[in-house]
């Protein structure tokens, strides 16, 4: 047979090598053709939808851990629900009670509820007094465990375990980094409108664990986190001129950043945490300066007969955006982090202020004033793609979540009422009020804590 084949090939003037080559190439073609032509492609499109997920109470490792187990599940549920990307299922509908977090759940029980994923876990107070939290994320349809881990911490930080687990679940199911294990520093406001007491306050991103950092004797504004989340820089208006301060969250120590004549305000950390950029008043104008926290040297970045303020670095530290009225009205400009020529990027109707660069690098959020309204919006870093996320009587001071997906801002309804904090997805959807003990303004979102 093989001889006959060879003869045939030879007669046709085709060598063995060519035949082999031909076979090889035809195999390649068949291989690719099989997929291209062998199967009919059925395109499926649809609207995005929140993912139905079940978070039953975490199993208590010891009888005393029951309350924490329920608390962890509640915090995770709340985080996922507030993100707008998940639809946690009401625990009242649960068929199965999880008693052993190491065993896979009975998936049929969760399919009945249309859950796509189930988070099961356990919290255990260990012999050394520390708290261990474990979780497993199960894909209900495939019956696979798609994430799982355990964390150990002091019992009082049980909420952080819940936030970290929330982040893992969020990332696994949405493909984006989470933002739940983070904090927000803001200005807590209390008292009558004409005698407002403003205190620096710190809380978890979901509004829990509020902690006051200042007593309210002096006016505080524009707090900003350091990349390490251990320090805050802010402006305080005490007896003299407004000054920029540095506050250590752990030690409670505070210090003035530089000693400049006139006002210093609108501070923000550089992405490496080594410098603070701020505005310094010079007569009727103000310009941008950057101060190295180690050497205490100060460098001028702008020199214009205008008000340059609200600087914010790009995440890579190469550029910064800021607000300037050098063109007549406040607008947003972008320039190199070392100074030099600035390029105006906002050209819509009205004025733009408080620009802040997304940690993801893709957008700049801003406050836009015009037509008697204050709006929160975002635009790309070249000024294109402007998108208004929320507008009304008074919205101001956007700050990005660590993943750049959510913006927090404050809204003041006017009248005798006071401001509150809100979050909104950068798509403009899913606006949510952030619970605070009193009125709140000037939020700044920290990076992820871990």
């Amino acid at each position, binding site marked *: 047979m093989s001889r006959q084949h060879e003869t045939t090939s030879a007669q046709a003037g085709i060598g063995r090598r060519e035949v082999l080559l031909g076979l090889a190439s035809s195999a390649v073609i068949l291989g690719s053709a099989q997929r291209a032509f062998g199967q*009919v492609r059925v395109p499926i499109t649809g609207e*995005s939808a929140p993912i139905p997920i079940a978070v039953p109470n975490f199993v208590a490792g010891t009888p005393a851990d029951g309350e924490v187990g329920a608390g962890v599940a509640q915090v995770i549920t709340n985080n996922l629900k507030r993100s707008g990307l998940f639809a946690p299922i009401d625990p009242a509908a649960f068929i199965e009670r999880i008693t052993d977090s190491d065993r896979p759940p009975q998936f049929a029980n969760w399919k009945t509820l249309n859950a796509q994923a189930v988070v099961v876990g356990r919290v255990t107070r260990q012999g050394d007094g520390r708290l261990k939290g474990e979780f497993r994320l199960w894909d209900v349809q495939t019956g696979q465990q798609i*994430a799982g881990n355990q964390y150990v911490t002091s019992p009082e930080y049980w909420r952080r375990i819940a936030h970290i687990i929330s982040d893992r679940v969020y990332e696994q199911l949405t493909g984006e980094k989470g933002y739940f294990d983070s904090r927000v520093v803001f200005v807590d406001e209390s008292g009558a409108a004409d005698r407002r007491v403003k205190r620096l306050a710190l809380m978890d991103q979901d509004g829990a664990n509020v902690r006051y950092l200042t007593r309210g004797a002096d006016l505080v504004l524009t707090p900003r986190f350091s990349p390490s989340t251990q320090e805050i820089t802010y402006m305080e208006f005490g007896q003299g001129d407004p000054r920029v301060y540095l506050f250590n969250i752990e030690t409670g120590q505070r210090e003035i950043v530089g000693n400049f004549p006139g006002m210093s305000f609108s501070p923000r950390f550089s992405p490496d945490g080594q410098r603070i950029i701020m505005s310094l008043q010079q007569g009727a104008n103000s310009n941008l300066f950057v101060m190295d926290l180690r050497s205490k040297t100060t460098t001028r970045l702008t020199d214009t007969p205008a008000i340059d303020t609200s600087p914010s670095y790009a995440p890579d530290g190469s550029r910064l955006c800021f607000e300037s009225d050098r063109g007549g009205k406040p607008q947003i400009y972008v320039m190199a982090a070392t100074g030099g020529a600035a390029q105006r990027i906002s050209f819509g109707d009205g004025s733009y202020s408080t620009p802040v660069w997304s940690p993801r690098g893709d957008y700049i959020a801003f406050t836009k004033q015009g037509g008697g309204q204050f709006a929160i919006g975002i635009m790309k870093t070249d000024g294109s793609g402007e998108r208004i996320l929320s507008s009304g009587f008074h919205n101001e001071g956007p700050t990005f979540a660590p993943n750049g997906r959510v913006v927090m801002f404050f809204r003041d309804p006017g009248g005798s009422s006071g401001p509150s904090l809100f979050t909104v997805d950068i798509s403009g959807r899913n606006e949510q009020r952030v619970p605070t003990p009193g009125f709140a303004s000037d939020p700044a979102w920290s990076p992820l804590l871990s």
Partner: protein
Amino acid sequence: MAASVALHVLVIGWGLVSFSTRAFESHPEESVTVDVISASAFAKAGMKTGKKDNPKPLVEKVAEAKPVDDAVGKISEKPPVVTETAPPPTPKVEDKPVEKKPDPPKPVAEAKPKEEPKPIEKKPDPPKIDPIAEALKKEEKKPPPKPQAQAAAKPPEPAKPKAERVFDQSKIAMLLNKQDPTRQAVTGDALNSNAALGLAKGAAADNSATWGAMFKDQVKRCWKKPDAGIDMQRVEAEFAIKLRKDGTLESMPVAQTSPTSSYQRVLLESGLRAIIACAPYRLPAVFFEEWKYFAPVFDSKEL
């Protein structure tokens, strides 16, 4: 002179005769009454197997509403098939987790909980590997069906051209004459033997617009498309799936897309969940040869 006159006369005369004869030779064609029908209707008209049976007729032809009737008809014809197959799917889905997990967990539960993070990570691996391995095995086993399907499809193609020729000249007229009773009378199981409907271009039958839309409607109910945020590039997640006649999955869907972004990974996983969750699928049995193996493609495009 006379010679030239005679020659001229001859030539002119011959010319006249030949012209006139040619003109006379052209036969006026018989007038044939023609209905304008769509290409697909025409293709089906070719299926002469349909007789004047009144119960079957017209079920097939008229686009989307018909398949439903057809399916209903079939269900009533084959009640046992439905009942037999309906139970198996649920047990099967449940069985896998139940069989695999209850047993190992107990020993694991006692031994591993106290161990460090590793146990948690180790457990997920084996189950993950299993389905993939199974899927691969199954896929390896499946290839034979494809060639068969292709082989089966190919023979009709060469045959078609011949049929076409015959078709044009004589059969069309015959068909047209009989049109009233039979042109849409293609129905029932007989269709399967005539899968090659696309005579005109020799292509395999493609009724995916019909059953594909039905599949899409069903799988969409279980699909929770992950939110892509803004400015996300449009991506696709493609699977190859094999279905049994009763609409259940013959094997785990096989991803044809290698995700290049985290969003594409999530899209792929959401699609997998949806395909499994919504099975079994109700699709017209007459097109089983087409939908027994096909490629659902989940598209991130926002509507």
